[in-house]
Structure formats: C-alpha cells, structure tokens
C-alpha cells in the first residue's frame, strides 16, 4: 500500500540532557520514505535547528543510529512502510536518541567513548615485506568483522554498558569485534590476549546476543567474535597444557 499523502504523527526527543522532552510533529508522507527522510522533512519544513547526525543515507556510514519505537535502528535503513505497520493506528512514531551514550541534543549523542577505546587497541603487526599472501578462506574470517559501519547500536544495546555502565571495565561489542579482526588476521603477530582479558574485560559479556540482533551489518558479533575471544582467554589462562607450551617455546599458540 502506498503511503503517499498519508498524514503521519511523530514524537521526537527535543532539548538537551536531563531537560529533553518529547515533542510532537505531523508531516505528509511520500512513497518509499525512510525514517531519516521524515526527520529531514520536519527539519526543512518546521524545525531548522532539529539536531540529527547523518552522513550517507545509504546504510554505509553508521551515523544515524536512533531508537525508533523503542528499537535501536539506523534511521536511513528503516522504511516508513514497516514502521507505520508496527505503530498502532493514530499513535505517533517515537524517535529517541541512543540511550547508552551521553545526550548532546535532540537525536544526537556523544559517542566519543568508542573512539577512545579504539585507540587503546594495538594495531596490526605483520610482515614488513609487501604482497602478503593468504587465501580467500582466511580472508573470509576477518572480512565479516570489517563490515562493521561503527553505528554503535551494539554498544547501545549491550546490558553491560546500557544498564550497568561498565564503560571503564569493558570494551563493548564494537571494539571486541575490532580485536577479533586483528586476532584472527592470518598474518598478525601481535599478542592482545592479556588486555582482552583485563582492560577490555571480555568476560563481562554474558552472551545474551542482543548486540548481534541489532547489528545492521549482520555481523555474528557474539558467536564469531566475542565467544572466540573468550575461548582464547580461557585457553591462555586456564589451560595448563597451553601454559607449558608457551613457557617452553615462548610462542603464541596459532589457531
């Protein structure tokens, strides 16, 4: 069914921090709109100073994360036809900023914590010679992690951060994916297991898979990244045979 001409109500967070409140708007819809189009229409027709962060409007940059009707999603990839369907007739569609991060204004939050955490991760450390050789199967394991668009919806959803605010103890799903990407790179020689256990607190994750559910890139964050890292930590710290191997050879175990 075409939505063209339909008058749709919205309720959107306006203001800053503690004093922010929901405000109501109404616009006329066009065919094929996504939620971000509606926010832009409100901006261009009613409220020029409505704050919203966005860049590509094509699901590639991960800037326009928000909670639409309570579900964390990218505004640019959420079709109005779906949202109208899931919203009770006559009720407004609700758009709020991500809850886990400090609020800046309207739909914008301060996500700088993710960048600070990324800085603490040791970069790739591979051979000095150019023309690295590895096959497509080895590439496949890592490429999935590199599809991350840094929308931080996973971080926003993670209980450890959203509900328990363990921002000092836990790296969060996005940066654990980054760690997995390096750890599983076929030619990387760096050892990051000690900090994955300590500073990055991988053991805080209790595998509820909420992060995986909201990932717009479809990355198997829990199964393919976090659990793999957890296993490596277990092997390192709790497996006596591996401990002996490392003491004797002074080498990291290859998987």
């Amino acid at each position, binding site marked *: 069914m075409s939505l063209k001409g339909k008058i749709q109500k919205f309720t959107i967070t306006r203001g*800053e921090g503690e004093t922010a409140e929901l405000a109501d708007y109404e616009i006329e819809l*066009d*065919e*094929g*709109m*996504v939620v971000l189009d509606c926010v*832009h229409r409100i*901006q*261009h*027709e009613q409220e*020029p*100073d*409505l*704050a*919203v*962060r*966005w*860049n*590509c*409007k*094509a*699901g*590639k*940059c*991960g*800037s326009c994360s928000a909670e639409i009707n309570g579900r964390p999603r990218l505004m640019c*990839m959420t*079709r109005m036809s779906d949202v109208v369907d899931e919203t009770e007739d006559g009720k407004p569609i609700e758009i709020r900023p991500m809850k886990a991060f400090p609020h*800046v*204004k*309207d739909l*914008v939050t*301060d996500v700088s914590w993710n*960048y600070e955490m*990324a*800085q603490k991760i040791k*970069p*790739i450390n*591979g*051979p*000095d010679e*150019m*023309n*690295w*050789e*590895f*096959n*497509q199967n080895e*590439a496949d394991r*890592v*490429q999935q992690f*590199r*599809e*991350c*668009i*840094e929308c931080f919806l996973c971080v926003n959803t993670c209980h450890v951060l959203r509900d328990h605010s363990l921002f000092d103890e836990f790296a969060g799903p996005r940066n654990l994916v*980054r760690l997995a*990407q*390096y750890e599983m*790179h076929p030619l990387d020689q760096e050892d990051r297991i000690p900090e994955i256990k300590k500073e990055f607190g991988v053991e805080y994750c209790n595998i509820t898979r909420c992060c995986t559910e909201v990932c717009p890139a479809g990355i198997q964050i829990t199964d393919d990244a976090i659990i793999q890292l957890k296993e490596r930590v277990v092997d390192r710290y709790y497996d006596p045979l591996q401990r002996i191997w490392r003491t004797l050879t002074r080498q990291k175990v290859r998987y």
Partner: protein
Amino acid sequence: MTEDYKKYEYDVIVIGAGGAGLRAAIEAARSGAKTAIITKSLLGKAHTVMAEGGCAAALQNADPRDGWKVHFHDTMKGSKWLANWQMAEYHAKEAPDRVRELEQWGAVFDRTPKNLINQRNFGGHTFPRLAHVGDATGLELIRTLQERGIHEGIDIFMEYTVRHLLKEGDRVTGCVAYTRVDGDFHAFSAKSVVLATGGITRVWSVCSGSWEYTGDGHALALWAGAELRDMEFVQFHPTGMVWPPSVRGILVTEGVRGEGGRLTNSEGDRFMFDYVPEMFAGDHAETIEESDQWVEEIVSGKLATVRRPPELLTRDVVSKAINSEVKAGRGSPHGGAFLDISHRGEEAILKKLPSMHHQFKELAGVDISKEPMEVGPTAHYVMGGVIVNAESQETTISGLYACGEVASGLHGANRLGGNSLSDLIVFGKRAGEFAAKRSKDLAQPVIDDSQVKSAITDMLEPFNNEGGENPGLIYDELREMMQAKVGIIRTKDELDEAIEDLKTFDTRRKSAYPGSSRKYNSGWHQALDLKNMVDVSYVATLAALTREESRGGHTRDDFPVPDDEYWGETLNIIYMEDGEIKIRQEAKEEMRDDLKDAINEVKAMIAERAAEAGGEN
C-alpha cells in the same frame, strides 16, 4: 559583541578525514610534523565510506598483461586527453605500492587463487585492475586508514567545520572553524594546510553524495585566491537508484557491470551496443555472444580472450546512453534503464555484490538475484577542482595543498571508476609529504586576530536575522534548480538562466533563519553551507557556459560534438578577483615524449587484441 575563540598551533593541518585527508595526515605525521585533522563528521564517516567497486592499481595479480603504461593510457583516454599527464603518470606508477601498503595496515582485500589481492574489471580499464572487498571497498579503505591514523600521534578534531583560511600576505597560515556540537570558535595556526574536503555533488538534487559534499574546500580555496580548473566536468554516474523517490540517486556500483551486469531498455534491447563512440570503436564486444563469452571467461578466472561488453564503456558514455533511451520513450517504469545481474545466480551475487543485494532488498523491495534493477544517472563526482602541482600537490597559493576530489588534474573531462580511491592514497601521501617538508623551515605563523574576528562575524550572520526562510528549503530549491538547468545535458539558455537564478539564491541565503541556538543546529550549518554551494554552483555553471563543445562529463545540446582543435587543447581556469568569480582559458601542456611513446605502445597492443578478437577490425 566579542566572541572568544581557542587558539592552536600545528605544522600541518589537514581539512577533511576521508581517504585523502587521512593518508595525507599519516604521511605528514610520519615525516615528523605536528599534525592535526579537522573533520566535519565523526572519524570514519566521510564520503569515502560510500565508495563501492574498488581501487585501481596495476598490481598485475589478475592479469599479467597489465602495467603502469596501460593504466596511464586508460586514465588519459578516459579523461578525453585533458588530464594532467604528469599526475596520471605518478598515479599509475605509485598506486600499486599504495594498495600493498594498505594491506600491511590491515586491509583485507578479496584474494586471487594464488593468495594475492584480487582485481576486478571496470569501465575504461583495459584489464581487471580494481583491488576490492566485495562491493564495500571504500569502507575497507577508510577503516584501514582510520585504524592506522589513530596510532600516528595525529590530533583529531571531530565535528569541526572550517569556514575560513587565514592568510599572511600571499600565503596560507591556518584556518578558522566552528564546532558543530557547541557552536564555539577555534583558530588554528599552521605552516601548511592541506585541503582534503571532497566534492560538490550535493548541489544537484539527484546525487550519490553524503551531506558533506557542499564544496567547502573548493570555495575555501577560491576565496583564498587559489585557482580551479575543469569545473564544467561533472561525472553523472550511469547507475544510481531511481525508485522509490527517497532513494533516488543512491549509487549502484559499476561492479555490477564489471561482474557481467546487462543494461536493457523497455523493449529488452541491450542498447549499449548502439552507443559505442568513435574513440572507443573496436575496443568492445560487438555481439551478445562475444559479450557473454567475456563474462564467462572472467567469471571462471581465465584471462579474457575476447573484448568486454559495451556496458563497460566509460561512465560519461553510459550515462548519456541511458538518458537518450529514456528520452526516446524506451525507459523503465520510473524513468531509468534495467540493469540485470540475476543470471550470475544468488550465490555469486551474495559473495561479490552483498551490499547491492542488501540495499535493493531493504530500500526498494527488489531481489537483484531474481529481478533486474532500475537505474539512472546520478551526480557522483566532480573532475574539476583546485589546481595543484603534480609532484607536491601545492595549490597556486603558497602553503595551501589539496588532494583527493577537491584537487584537479588527474581525471580531466571524465574519471574512470576505481581511479578515485587510488587518487586518494597516491596524492594524499604526496600532499602530506610535501606539506610536512615545507613546514620544516618555517616559523610558526602568528594568528591574526582581526581575520579571526571577521570570520566569526560572518559565521554568526545568520543569527542576526529575526525570522526568515528555512535554510533547508533554500537548499532543496537550489539543488532542484541545478538539477534542472546544469544537469547531464546542458544548453546555453538554461545555463544563462541558472546564472541569474544563482544571484537570487545568493540574496535569499542571506535571509535564511536558522533559529537561535548554536548548539548542534543543522539549520545554521546549512545556512553557512549555502554560501559555498552558491559559489561552487556558479563556478560549475560559468565553466559549462564557456565550454562550447561536448566532452566527457560536460554535454552541450547546442554543441553536441567534441571540438578537438580548440577545446581539446584548452582548459577553463576559474579564479576570484576583487570578490568576483572570473574565468579564463589556458592551453593544456604538451605531453612528454616518452609518455607519448608509452601511449602509442599501448594503443598498438589494444589494436592487436581487437584484430584478434573482432576479425573485421
């Protein structure tokens, strides 16, 4: 009212954090310069992230017959012989090592059976040449540079917008910015400034660009006294989405055609066979059978023994062809052409074109593994930009450098797909290297308070209005006007009208009312962006009006053929004098003899292949 501002001192300031800016900053920092990046967005969000198909470099992994000379030839030919040949030479020679270096910094490109970086076919490239990661190569490139860049000791100012370049006499000595989040002001002293701000395509309503593409760097350079060239040449990528309306313009990668995608009209004809221009005659398959054989060979990992499908002609050619088909009444239901890849099967499509599959499924409800896409031209890239020295990337103003899309020269009248990502890393590195080198012998410039104050006054101007038009509406209308009058096909009458319209927009933008808050106020940002958008639109229109011929990304309905004798040898140069934008013509530089020999060598090789494959040619 005096406004406070914060002061900073750096050796090198890079404006922009896309591929070119990050690469420049990494090089500057590695050369020992105290370096900062100023970016309008968060790190890793710049327009580079949207690049899909790949990064062109003659690695010779997928086809050993490739080499720098062939890449050089293809780039020059694709540019309709207007590119700066010295840039094209550096680019072709240095791109392979820049790509291999990305791999050492963590990029994981798709592999060949021999475990090396794989390469795909693209329009205008004689051999498979594009290093790629599925159809999300830009993401790989920017993330790799981002992850390298944060460990190089670079200071990164996120969500800061630069509005003014500071000058001391004839040289650039820094810049002034506001923060998007708080609306505070900041002045940076810098011995060298590198512009890496990307393009201008947001001035067209159907475009593939992100909001950032408002021509900031083009305008900053122009205002500071630097010269621009080739601004009439705008690449309308042939395949943007056309339906539904809200996604119109979003890019559909050329990789679809590189993987064997077929373009058809409403009558089911493979119309590209009818649009092969004279300069490409004999280079492409002449029958559907030859075309299919090429796809079959490429798909099975063999070296091609026949010529490529005409769908892989350069972007300017394919865009105009689609435009003509629609005009002739043979368009798809929503005014485009059909692009079909479903014959490759679901498994191959999910592997090679995953984000296209996702994009169409999510945004248009189309499963491209089963049905054709509808596609049409979208404003994608500006070949024109700030004139730079080929070796150092310094502009015509001392202390100011430019690299990436904001710079000009490499692409002439038309850019080949895949030559943008390679442009970013080749010339980003050069810009960073030379900007750092220059800064070594210079004293730290003093920040001129009066210039900063006047820049701040300009930035605050929109708040002096008490009520007025919503900047967003002016923005929308400006883009519609440019789309209608300075689009893919141009005429003198419409260009004249556009020039007049732009004067009105310049008046209207001054009355825009963004509300009163300086905190993350998109309306205020847009009101300021409108000034550069009007100026770069004017620049592009003026250049288009002046070039009375059709060539590459500039098509005049009233001058439909190339004028090789005059315009084939001449460049439009844009500059500002006494606050007025002006244009003059300059002859292009004669190519070095050894490069002419290289071109002839490649031409002979291509003719030989055509003779083998086509018989009658």
